[in-house]
């Protein structure tokens, strides 16, 4: 056997043993019944998937979708001008890029916690507003959908900036110049020439933000305080407190199916557009 064939073996072993095998087990569990002591029992059944049609769970699924979509949109709105600024800056381009990438290197948990610290009743925002006299009692800024949305946008914003920046960097500079020569003013040039041309970056960024937001568990748990139940929390609770593994497995499988179909569909459409 050639050297290169041996080289991929450890990765294969890890992927089969600790990615494919666990996946197969969860898939099997999703068709089993809940055991008396929390485990799983036969007979094989479709009941777990039928339960997903319950309006209660459909709502959670739709809410997660809406939340992820909203977070992605907000990230796009916030990231595009920033990426444009960085691509147009000349002297400190590297510094700006480093500043965008810095959060990658600091802990996601710590950055989420930072908002817990800022938004709590005695946090900086409430203290400042009270000092100025705008409010007299602290506002409930934490443990609601808004806090979760903010946490998601803050957490995944760099994932949107970098791909858009990469596309803007590769953009043929003669195109916006041509638009200007033909009389387009700066703002319309950005909106009608540069924005459509940066589509590949926007799509890549949207995937990178939407996917982790859809399955988010940490942010809704910490900033939503258990009050904002998204599909990630639903999975977690089925495997811990509720001890209903088969149903949790069914929710996981649905989430995986959605994520895979979405990425596959978008990438397929984009590659068709390119060819």
């Amino acid at each position, binding site marked *: 056997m050639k050297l290169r064939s041996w080289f991929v073996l450890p*990765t294969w072993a890890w992927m089969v043993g600790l990615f494919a095998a666990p996946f197969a087990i969860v898939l099997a569990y999703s068709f089993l019944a809940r055991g008396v002591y929390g485990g799983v029992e036969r007979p094989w059944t479709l009941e777990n998937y039928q339960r997903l049609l319950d309006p209660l769970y459909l709502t959670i699924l739709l809410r997660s979708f809406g939340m992820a979509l909203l977070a992605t949109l907000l990230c796009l709105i916030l990231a595009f001008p920033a990426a444009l600024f960085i691509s147009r800056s000349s002297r400190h381009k590297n510094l700006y890029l480093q500043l965008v990438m810095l959060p990658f290197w600091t802990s996601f948990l*710590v950055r989420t916690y*930072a908002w817990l610290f800022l938004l709590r009743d005695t946090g900086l925002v409430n203290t400042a507003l009270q000092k100025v006299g705008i409010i007299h009692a602290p506002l409930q800024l934490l443990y609601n959908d808004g806090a979760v949305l903010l946490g998601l946008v803050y957490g995944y914003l760099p994932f949107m900036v970098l791909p858009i920046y990469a596309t803007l960097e590769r953009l043929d500079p003669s195109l916006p110049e041509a638009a200007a020569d033909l009389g387009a003013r700066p703002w319309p040039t950005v909106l009608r020439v540069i924005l459509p041309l940066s589509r590949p970056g926007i799509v890549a960024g949207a995937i990178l933000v939407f996917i982790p937001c859809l399955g988010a568990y940490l942010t809704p748990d910490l900033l939503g305080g258990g009050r904002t139940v998204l599909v990630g929390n639903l999975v977690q609770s089925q495997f811990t407190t509720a001890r209903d593994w088969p149903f949790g497995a069914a929710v996981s499988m649905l989430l995986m199916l959605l994520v895979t179909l979405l990425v596959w569909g978008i990438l397929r459409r984009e590659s068709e557009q390119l060819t």
Partner: protein
Amino acid sequence: MKRWLGLYAVVFFAFLHLPLLTLSVFSFNSSRFTVWEHFSLDWYRAVFRDPELIEGTWNSVIVAVAATLISTVVGTLCAYGLWKRGSRLLTGTLYLSLVTPEIVTGISLLALFQWMFRWLHWHLGLYTVILAHVAFSIAYVVIVISARLRTISPNLEEAAMDLGASEWGAFFYVILPALGPGIIAAALLALTVSFDDYVITSMVAGVDSQTLPMVIYAMARRGASPVINAISALITVFFGLLIVISQRVREA
């Protein structure tokens, strides 16, 4: 428009970095409220006196170092193998492992371990955490190293072999040194991802193997505290220094 963009950039970078800066500043505040009293190192002393935090840090260091070493070696070899001959199945599996929601990865690993423990009478511990961390870090390593390999001409290796190097020799003395900076970058990424992970770790860690993120998370669930500010600032500074030093090393 240039002025507007510049103005926006200031707001953007403030939004990105002020929360952590404020957090760090208030870790030196003697009061536990967000009103400045006076400078104090009390919260840092509290961090070093907290046995849970110390133990969590040790566990995290052990896990992160072990997972980084294993995933960097395994991932680098894999990237090289894929560079020589691509495999859509393996690349696809790696990407799939990357887009799988963390919580799903966590519960499936938990299900796997529990299923195995029915026959083997073992328990969840640090080794299950390390196995899990390697599983999700390999994809990152492969992607970083593959990007670096694409900049290397295949002729380089052929030239070495024409000059009498064996397949192993060409790999060790030609390809690996050329990959050096990529390997450092990949290892750093694996290290930060591993050290930071909470969601997957919390599912596969045993009762006696709490990592630092798990301890911090448990504390944060009870509400914000200056002790968490202090440990957060320490983590941020540590990784900040690590990145700066590694970049100096790479540039040198």
